[in-house]
């Protein structure tokens, strides 16, 4: 959403939520908007408190338990993702992982000022927990839940690089900006997208999944491709996400599977269809790029 629609669009969406919780003070500074946005989240997200500390990682055990619990209630639970968050790491491991994640995030902030600004407004918590693996479900490197907007779960797996983590931050911020967008303008007919005949093919896990997951995967993949093109370090392999040429192909296939849904115009609002179309245009431009890495095309 940030690369596709820009910093100001994201800021306006956050402001619109903040405005619902504003007190008597004007919302004319970024800290004031952030404060009111967190007030809004606290007033609406049952049992999940936002982190008011100046550090994304400064979360106590009780708050972390609340955030983890927010991943446990979802009926469109096609990959058993509601039982994916595992136990805590021991304190030494957690500190080491937190330091790695903090350094990766600081590096990312230095690469793109707009990312730093929007992330700092939209995200309040980053918590570390193990991932459970189970039948029919791969392990995860982290995730986000619409029941705890502003909070990101990470595993900081030992196999991944700082670049992988930076891509995870781009990935997760995109989910949150889509959640925030949905609080401003409806996106889906949720009862209809629960039906398997309305599933489509996702861009990253490459599975048949409920449409909300598929559209999120399309937008996440497009944002990742654009972030790689614009500011992420180049020439390094990644573990979590595929190379750009493969990712853009998979994203176009996911878009085609959405296009093929006979009921697509009633499953998604015109607003969301326009977002998917914007992804389509961006991916077509990337597909037309003569550079196989896709990372040097304007």
């Amino acid at each position: 959403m940030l690369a596709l629609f820009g910093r100001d669009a994201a800021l306006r969406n956050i402001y619109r939520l903040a405005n619902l919780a504003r007190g008597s003070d004007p919302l004319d500074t970024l800290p004031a908007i952030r404060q009111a946005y967190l007030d809004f989240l606290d007033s609406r997200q049952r049992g999940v408190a936002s982190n008011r500390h100046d550090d994304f990682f400064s979360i106590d055990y009780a708050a972390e338990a609340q955030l983890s619990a927010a991943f446990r209630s979802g009926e469109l639970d096609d990959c058993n993702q509601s039982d994916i968050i595992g136990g805590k790491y021991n304190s030494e491991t957690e500190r080491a992982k937190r330091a790695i994640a903090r350094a990766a995030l600081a590096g990312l902030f230095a690469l793109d000022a707009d990312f730093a600004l929007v992330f700092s407004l939209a995200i309040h918590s980053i918590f570390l927990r193990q991932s459970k693996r189970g039948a029919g479900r791969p392990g995860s490197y982290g995730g986000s839940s619409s029941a705890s907007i502003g909070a990101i779960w990470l595993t900081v797996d030992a196999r991944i690089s700082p670049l992988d983590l930076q891509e995870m931050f781009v990935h997760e911020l995109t989910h949150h900006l889509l959640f925030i967008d949905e609080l401003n303008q409806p996106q889906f007919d949720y009862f209809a997208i629960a039906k398997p005949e309305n599933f489509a093919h996702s861009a990253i896990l490459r599975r048949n999944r409920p449409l909300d997951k598929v559209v999120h995967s399309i937008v996440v993949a497009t944002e990742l491709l654009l972030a790689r093109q614009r500011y992420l370090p180049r020439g390094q392999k990644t573990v979590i996400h595929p190379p750009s040429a493969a990712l853009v192909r998979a994203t176009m296939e996911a878009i085609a599977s959405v296009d093929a849904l006979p009921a697509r115009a009633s499953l998604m609002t015109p607003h969301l269809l326009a977002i998917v179309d914007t992804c389509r245009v961006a991916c077509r431009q990337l597909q037309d790029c003569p550079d196989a890495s896709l990372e040097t095309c304007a």
Partner: protein
Amino acid sequence: MTSSNTLKLSTDEQKVIESSVASIRKVLRQHNMDVKSIVGSVTAADMANTQSAVEVRFAEGAAMHSVMNMIAMD
């Protein structure tokens, strides 16, 4: 409710946070931008849409809540 009140940070950790370029306060202060010009284009109709969308999304006791809870891994 805030979560920072009971957190015990070591002195070293506190120093890291204070010096970090990823400190939330530092990032927001660095952007000395004209917020009013950006949010000034938000209209009363936009705000009405937001109010309506929020009420649907967070409808108390509605079955929609758990249907709509999106756990994103893809």
